């Protein structure tokens, strides 16, 4: 695709909700001083790093037309497992840190493989299985910590999120690297295209010889892995672990994906939008806070903003469809 077409394609790829979102961001920029300044932008990106990683995995599941309710629970157990390990060591070495990261990833992957096997290969209901995994994740974390909270981790580990490279926080760096990898995976590999195919028409995908079971399995495994990596970033940032760290992430990830323009019945949208969705939600929370609203009002307005964004998308799509129907149909 030539440069021009790429540019046009990119603009086309921006859904209605994104335009509305960009509009809101500019509104904030006008009202708040230095909202789009380097320091605040870094802040926003930092705050969205964990969400964007979780949402990366969620995007794939939603493209299939399903949802992965387990990510919150997986984040929790992954972070808690690593946390317990790190606190069990007297003095933390780089090797310990690496092992901690590995634990996060491995726990996440394990849950993902479980989900993928049950849902993709054995074809159990995705709601029930992922919900069950979620409960097990939260539950395990609560059990092994006896309901307590772990906090205070070694700075070597915390460097994973809090360290800085070239002026960027490490969590942003990791998020960027992961985003690049996921973008490639989703838009440029057969696996990614097959996700769209299955979500669009599973019957067609089956008939075309796509290994639907394998693709589903991989998607859930990947989602679990993403949750594990997100747990690593989260643990390093918030410096605490325990039974509630991942609470709400499943719903927030879904929201980021949907705000980014990926529909929940699958087959449309993609990770490009999710990145925007995650950053946008973070930007909104940031802006609402800077305006000076109380925490409580922030919540209210966040809800209003999300409704407004999606509403804009829904209505503009309806109008667009109406307009195209009006052009009396000539058979081609």
């Amino acid at each position, binding site marked *: 695709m030539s440069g021009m077409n790429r540019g046009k394609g990119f603009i086309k790829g921006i859904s209605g909700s994104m335009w509305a979102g960009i509009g809101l961001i500019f509104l904030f920029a006008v009202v708040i001083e230095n909202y789009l300044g380097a320091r605040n932008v870094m802040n926003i990106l930092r705050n969205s790093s964990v969400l964007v990683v979780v949402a990366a995995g969620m995007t794939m599941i939603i493209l299939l037309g399903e949802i992965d309710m387990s990510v919150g629970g997986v984040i929790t157990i992954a972070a808690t497992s690593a946390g317990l390990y790190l606190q069990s060591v007297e003095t933390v070495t780089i090797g310990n840190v690496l092992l901690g990261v590995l634990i996060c990833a491995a726990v996440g992957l394990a849950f993902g493989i479980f989900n993928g096997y049950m849902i993709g290969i054995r074809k159990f*209901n995705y709601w029930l299985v992922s919900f069950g995994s979620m409960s097990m994740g939260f539950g395990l974390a609560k059990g092994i910590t006896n309901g307590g909270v772990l906090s205070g981790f070694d700075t070597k580990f915390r460097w994973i999120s809090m360290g800085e490279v070239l002026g960027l926080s490490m969590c942003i760096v990791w998020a960027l690297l992961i985003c690049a990898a996921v973008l490639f995976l989703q838009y440029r590999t057969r696996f990614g295209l097959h996700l769209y195919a299955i979500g669009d028409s599973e019957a067609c995908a089956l008939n075309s010889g796509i290994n639907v079971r394998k693709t589903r399995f991989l998607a859930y495994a990947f989602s679990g892995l993403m949750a594990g990596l997100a747990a690593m970033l989260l643990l390093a940032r918030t410096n605490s672990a325990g039974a509630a760290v991942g609470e709400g992430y499943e719903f927030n990830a879904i929201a980021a994906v949907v705000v980014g323009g990926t529909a929940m019945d699958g087959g449309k949208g993609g990770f490009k939008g999710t990145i925007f969705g995650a950053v946008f939600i973070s930007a909104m929370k940031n802006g609402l806070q800077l305006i000076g609203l109380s925490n409580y009002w922030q*919540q209210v307005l966040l809800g209003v903003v*999300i409704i407004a964004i999606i509403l804009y998308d829904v209505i503009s799509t309806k109008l667009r469809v109406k307009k195209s129907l009006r052009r009396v149909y000539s058979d081609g």
Partner: protein
Amino acid sequence: MADRFDVRSFLIKGARVIVLILLFVVFSAFTDSFFGLNNWTNVGNILLQEAPFYILLALGMTIPMIVGGIDLSIEANISLSSFICAMTIQAVGNTGAGILTGLAVGLLMGFINGVLIARTGLPPFVATYSMNWIGKGSALVISKGGQLNGFENFRNLFNSWEGTYLLMAGIILVMAWFLYTKTAFGRETYSVGCNAVAARISGINSTKIKILAYMASGFIGAMTGMMYVAKLGAADPTLGNGFTIKAIAATLIGGASFRGAKSRVSNALIGGLIVVILNNGLIHIGVPGVWQDFAQGLIIIAAVLMERMLEKLQTAEPKVRLQ
């Protein structure tokens, strides 16, 4: 759906009842404290004090599921309507006014959800997720983060007889059951859940049905919230937190499904009972409270496996698919 009586769904539904009975029997047998012929206190306590709430929570989630949706704003509903009810009682001094206001708030939230979903076409997830933030935030704003105390009168109204909560939950449950399985309105609701387009062409006002389904959820949420206030004797703007997951868990365990027209009122009842008995029984067996969530997760997976096993046992059905 209501009248389709085939052996398979009967077995599957019956299976859950059997599980409930089994749990009951096992817990009774292996402990002294759970239940004994001379010891009804524990079970009585569960049934009277805990089950009603769980069942209503599950019911509030189940009804939108019938029309193929979901209600993530149950938390906010419980918090907001119960708090406004409490505020009204304090302001006006009249319990009845408080209850009516609380119900009105719940119905309004449900109405807004319904309109956003059915008229404007917002996906149910987005609409109720956002309303949840709006509702929770509003409750916090109104309450300025603080609680309201001193509802002894309110509490005594309910606690005068220990069976009040169970009775109220029972009445609502029976009403819902009757409405959705025995009336034309209920049939229309299931039709909308099965195929909203075909329902519209059949002359059913799909929009109205969906809005009413969410309003029903709002009503039930409000009732549950107010019952909690009565039980605690205080109103808290964060009362509902964490209830969404509980509601979903209960109704899923009870056999409901997010596919339209596949959920029933009985799912809420059975699911709520199983969750309550399980949680309680595990404590008595000696499973520490901190491990309960994990146990719940295992149960859900077990339920899924069990259902698959039952389906396999039912292979006789000749699926003659004429071309």
